[in-house]
């Protein structure tokens, strides 16, 4: 098959794949229905303070798998739903930020700076329109970057990286994530170490189970779902409960929003915000491609660069950044949304997740057969069809469709999602907890797995108590197995050379990079605390 035929086959896999139902005799493709449902769920979840996209992805993945099964046909509908959530959530996060000065997701904090003043001036609908336009433009730009770059990254890796280099690359990714997530490299490293210890329990090559303290319960190790849902969701819910204990639940009562004046977005205004969208999309896309940095930094950087530009070109009489400038909303929303496409570059090219959302994409492909992210996916094999490549183009088609849904219906769903802000946390938290345990039980029907999930939940709570980000833990847990494997393989492939990590320049550079990243992050932190 030629490259063009692969692209067409991927599109066909989505459009002519299994049908969800028939509408007037026309079969409606299941994958598209799932993408649509994912986007709507994502917008609602993003608009609910206390919930986030990755949370919804975590809960829905086991439920989706128990529903669709493990066969390759399940891949596109399941991934379509997850990607829909990922894309919808960034859009939805702007809603409470603009309307109620409460960011729905952490990366929407910067949106409150100009979004809420706009609402106070009676321009909330206009602000939502700006957020919608910028968010979807940034997202689309980032997806295009993914489509173009992922195959090249994958091919480069296949050509230049051998077992030792792959091991070194994993070490570099983990130290990078430890250093940049959460603001404290020390705590990040501890988080990574805890994740590695947890994943190494019960595994190993010997028959005798490792680190199991002689107990049968630990001999099989922890399953990935109990660890991740526990640390990421149960931990967050426990922390929220504690916060609720300390302060009264304010999310039930909100002031009324009164809009006045013209709420339309004029052509001149679109042209005014376009350069800010472009600039932020580029920043967000570049940041998204690096593992671990994530949307919050992209939003902050996009906002800062937007402000610098605005100072030079601010129109006469227009509000400054922070006082309700539509350019401020545009700069933030374009930046945080343009992370979502490019963060799949390391996922598809290397099999390395860069943030929490990507973790669930990797988990979905790990659980469902027929698709293993990594260099071999992008082989444009001519004589026999490389089904994995067809699936990649199917995935790209699903992403484009998600963007289309965001472009067309996203605005209306954003306005409808305002209702989610009024859901009180005391109602929301038990529902999330129940759904989480149901999801774990659906995948592993044993009481043991529920206890493990609760145990990891307490660990996640304690980590949050000491300001330690649980994300390095999660990514270390996901990558731990690959790290051990590739290290073992590198050792035996080099004929038992104990210094295999220093066997090539590329791997030495990766190792040096991992040390330098941590040292630089520590210095940066010290400089910041001295200044403070």
């Amino acid at each position, binding site marked *: 098959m030629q490259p063009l035929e692969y692209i067409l086959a991927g599109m066909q896999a989505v459009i002519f794949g299994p049908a969800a139902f028939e509408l007037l005799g026309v079969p409606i493709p299941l994958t598209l229905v799932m993408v649509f449902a994912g986007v709507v769920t994502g917008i609602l979840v993003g608009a609910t303070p206390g919930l986030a996209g990755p949370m919804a992805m975590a809960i829905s993945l086991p439920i989706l798998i128990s529903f669709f*099964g*493990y*066969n390759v046909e399940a891949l596109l509908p399941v991934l379509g739903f997850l990607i829909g959530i990922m894309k919808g959530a960034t859009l939805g996060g702007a809603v409470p930020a603009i309307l109620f000065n409460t960011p729905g997701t952490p990366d929407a904090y910067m949106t409150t700076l100009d979004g809420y003043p706009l609402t106070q001036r009676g321009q909330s609908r206009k602000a939502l329109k700006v957020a919608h336009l910028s968010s979807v433009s940034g997202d689309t730009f980032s997806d295009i970057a993914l489509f173009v770059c992922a195959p090249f990254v994958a091919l480069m890796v*296949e050509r230049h990286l*051998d*077992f030792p280099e792959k091991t070194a690359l994993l070490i570099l990714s983990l130290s990078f994530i430890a250093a940049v997530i959460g603001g404290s490299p020390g705590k990040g490293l501890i988080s990574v170490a805890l994740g590695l210890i947890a994943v190494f329990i019960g*595994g190993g*090559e*010997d*028959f*005798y189970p490792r680190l199991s303290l002689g107990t049968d319960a630990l001999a*099989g190790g922890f399953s990935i779902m109990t660890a991740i849902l526990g640390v990421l969701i149960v931990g967050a819910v426990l922390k929220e409960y504690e916060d609720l204990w300390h302060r009264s639940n304010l999310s039930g009562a909100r002031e009324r929003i009164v809009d006045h004046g013209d709420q339309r977005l004029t052509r001149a205004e679109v042209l005014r915000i376009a350069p800010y969208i472009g600039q932020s999309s580029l920043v967000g896309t570049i940041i998204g491609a690096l593992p671990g940095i994530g949307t919050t930094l992209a939003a902050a950087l996009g906002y800062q660069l937007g402000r610098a530009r605005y100072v030079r070109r601010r129109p006469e009489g227009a509000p400054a950044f922070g006082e309700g400038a539509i350019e401020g909303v545009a700069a933030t929303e374009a930046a945080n949304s343009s992370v979502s496409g490019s963060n799949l570059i390391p996922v598809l090219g290397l099999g390395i997740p860069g943030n929490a959302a990507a973790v669930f994409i990797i988990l979905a492909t*790990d*659980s*469902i*057969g*027929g698709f*293993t992210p*990594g*260099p*071999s996916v992008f*082989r444009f*094999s001519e*004589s*026999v069809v490389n089904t994995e490549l067809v699936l990649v183009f199917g995935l790209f088609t699903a992403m484009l469709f998600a963007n289309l849904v965001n472009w067309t219906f996203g605005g209306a769903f954003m306005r409808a999602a305002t209702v989610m802000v009024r859901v009180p946390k005391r109602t929301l938290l038990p529902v999330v907890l129940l759904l989480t345990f149901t999801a774990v039980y659906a995948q*592993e*029907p044993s009481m043991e797995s529920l206890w493990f999930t609760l145990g990891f939940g307490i660990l996640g709570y304690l980590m949050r108590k000491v300001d330690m980000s649980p994300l390095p833990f999660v990514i270390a847990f996901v990558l731990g197995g690959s790290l051990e*494997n590739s290290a*073992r*393989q590198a050792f*035996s*492939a*080099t*004929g*038992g050379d104990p210094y295999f990590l220093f066997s090539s320049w590329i791997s030495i550079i990766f190792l040096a990079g991992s040390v330098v990243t941590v040292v630089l992050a520590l210095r940066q932190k010290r400089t910041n605390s001295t200044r403070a």
Partner: protein
Amino acid sequence: MKKFLAFGAIALGYSIAATASLAEDWTPPGPITMHIAFPPGGGSDSQARLIAEELETRYGWTITPQNTPGKAGLIMAKEMQGAPADGTVFGIGISEALDYGMADGTADMTPDDVTPIVTTTLAEVAFVVPASKGWKTFDDFVAAAKAGAPLRVGAITPKIADVTYLMGKEAGIDMNITMVKGGRGMLNALYAGDLDAGFVAGAHSKGVKAGELVELVSGMSRKLSLTPDAPLLGDLGVPYNLDIYFMYFGPKGMDGAAQATLAQSISEIVLDESTKAGALLKANFGGGEAISGEELQAFIDSSFASAKELMQAASE
């Protein structure tokens, strides 16, 4: 191949005839837990889940598939110890768990600690190299190994690693043998150029048909279906083979009626190409092969003895 299938079918016929009266009487006393000794996803897991699905449809049983991967199936065998022997707990793994896996004694189990039920197919094990290397025969491979640095050869199970080592020893070449995870892991490493060769158990057939991979040696006791000219291990002076069956087994002392009914029902499904499971086996392995009863027991006994010898030979 056909001859072998016919032989299997006749053997199956005998075992079914002998146990038909038992089979008619047995129904599971409760929901069944079907362990799968492979990680979720992948061809082996799909095979197991499709068989479970078909059993549920045909007989109305309730079956919960549960992945219990690790140590080439030994973790699942351990799971069987202490499990109820009434037919409500059994699992699918590979025959290597019962022969090579238990031969060195560290698992503290012997094949007698489980009840073999039925095989589903024989894995088409072949020594495979990427076509880009230009090696057409095993002699080409040996010549390349003698000419340069030690070649890197992957192995997906410890038994395969030992046989690979003996094959190299017999040919007088050094190889760096590297363990990889499953057929998919092996193919990724071969395509990426991280490995030069390795025994693959069926996952390679698509690549061979595409001309991207070449089969140099048959790991089985019979010829390869795609490359019938490739030598057998015996032809290369290695007196062992890699006949690896996918097979079901249950806890020790399993109820005879349950064992017979399960063997009969599962073999009907795997030999029927109109079922999804049968079609998958046809596509990946050339078809199902259901061996049960005494013939299966005899195979396990002989391969357990042979595995002990293999271990001894490889450690010398």
